[in-house]
């Protein structure tokens, strides 16, 4: 993870000479390549779809698909309305979707071929190998995995592992510049310790990075990538406690609202990482009382499967970035937010980055 991150940072930052780098896109490339390697055991370097790195392509595809979910043709007719291709957004969505599906299918077929020939099997198989093994084992049973199921799982993990982590890192990069010198020094000290450990990084060192951990948690509170969940339809009429939910109604939860609850967080609009540091006077006891009041990764049986990986990735990537590079925001830049599928900067955050 560390070597790959360092390599991508230097490759991309040097290629663009450090000027005006879209930081979200850079983090998407890093998390995309990491996820691809971890889950699918492959390299993404030099692979493009219509001239774009697959992570960037997927991110744009998600954005345009999210736009289509809000479109009247979808609200009235569902997928059939999109498939009519009446508007450019429909046609772009269908085209990009087809391209991306074909790219992923190719990747899977290549892996499948290797798998059938017994190549690349190890004691620590990647996720795609596990899926292919499952498919083989479950053949002929009720639980058989189809090729389409593997394809959709592949895309789910690619998207889930890439997009939310890169959004969290983008927000963290912005909030770092808004911290006092004292806070910045404390964060930098831990970042240097982590990055100096290099590939020998150990779990206790990661756990010791208390300030970085708190900083990421506060980032997830103030500008959580998933401010609301993926909405759900009530399959039957029922009560949630005393609230009557009629069949067909949409039910969701507003994590972002709880994150700004003044009864839980003192001065909720203020970014204060000390809320999460035990023993600090600003430590928020209320926030720790109920596990359902702060849920950036959701909770319950369908919580985020990649939450631990996201935090580990976040700590490592942020540490490497802060300890290796100096960066500046565009003059006068203040973050405005928009809600696509995720909560993100309304205006692209371009950074000028140079090596220390």
């Amino acid at each position: 993870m560390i070597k790959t991150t360092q390599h991508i940072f230097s490759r991309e930052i040097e290629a663009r000479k450090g000027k005006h780098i879209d930081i979200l896109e850079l983090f998407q490339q890093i998390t995309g390549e990491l996820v691809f390697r971890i889950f699918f055991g492959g390299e993404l370097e030099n692979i493009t779809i219509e001239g774009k790195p697959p992570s960037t392509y997927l991110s744009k595809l998600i954005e345009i698909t999210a736009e289509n979910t809000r479109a009247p043709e979808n609200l009235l007719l569902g997928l059939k309305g999109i498939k009519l291709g009446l508007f450019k957004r429909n046609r772009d969505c269908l085209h990009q979707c087809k391209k991306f599906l074909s790219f992923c299918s190719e990747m899977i077929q290549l892996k499948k071929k290797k798998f059938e020939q017994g190549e690349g099997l190890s004691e620590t198989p990647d996720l795609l190998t596990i899926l292919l093994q499952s498919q083989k084992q479950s053949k002929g049973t009720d639980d058989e995995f189809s090729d389409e199921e593997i394809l959709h799982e592949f895309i789910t993990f690619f998207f889930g592992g890439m997009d939310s982590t890169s959004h969290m890192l983008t927000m963290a990069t912005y909030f770092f510049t808004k911290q006092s010198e004292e806070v910045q020094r404390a964060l930098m000290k831990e970042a240097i310790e982590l990055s100096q450990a290099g590939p020998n990084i150990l779990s206790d060192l990661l756990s010791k990075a208390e300030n970085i951990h708190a900083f990421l948690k506060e980032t997830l509170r103030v500008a959580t990538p998933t401010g609301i969940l993926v909405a759900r339809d009530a399959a039957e009429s029922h009560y949630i406690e005393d609230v009557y939910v009629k069949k067909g109604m949409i039910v969701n939860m507003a994590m972002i609202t709880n994150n700004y609850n003044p009864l839980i967080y003192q001065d909720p609009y203020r970014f204060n990482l000390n809320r999460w540091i035990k023993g600090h006077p600003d430590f928020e006891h209320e926030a720790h009382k109920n596990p359902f009041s702060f849920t950036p990764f959701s909770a319950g049986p369908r919580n985020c499967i990649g939450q631990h990986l996201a935090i580990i990735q976040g700590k490592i990537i942020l540490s490497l970035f802060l300890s290796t590079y100096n960066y500046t925001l565009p003059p006068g830049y203040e973050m405005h937010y928009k809600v696509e599928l995720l909560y993100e900067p309304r205006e692209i955050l371009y950074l000028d980055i140079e090596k220390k």
Partner: protein
Amino acid sequence: MESQSNLTVQASWSQILLMLLGFLIVRVCWKYARLWLILQGFKKQGAEVCFKIPQGIYYQRKIDTKNGDGFKWFKEIIQKNPKVRFLATHIGTTPIIYLVDPSLVKAFLSDPSKYPKSAIYEPFMPLLRHGLLLSHKYPMEKTQKNFISNLQTRVHYFTASSYDQDYSAHLLQRD
């Protein structure tokens, strides 16, 4: 005589069209009136309400994004009423509730079987239909079963499993 009969036909077509239009307007008005009544009912149960014809919360988010923060309403509402239990609004004429009170959130998240992912995500289906994020009940259980059965026989899952020894245990506890 002939021109008189043509006139009659023309008049009745336009009447039919007018009637259809009238019927459509009444139907739409009725749908929004019913929606308003539902939202008022939620208000009595401790909800904060956002009612904006025609798009509802999408329209609110559009305005809020222009004003600098797409979640402005979601954040401000709890400053005014920190004890708000849930938010009630709509997408078109479909009511939507956003749970806030942790006890409601707990009840909602504890039983996902009642809640398939919303039909508004139809455009994502060609990409993600069978994946863990959007699948429901059986396909999801099958996926988890397949992962977990394999996990039990593997030492490593992600590189993370070597870092966090509880990670596999955490996954196995799911559902």
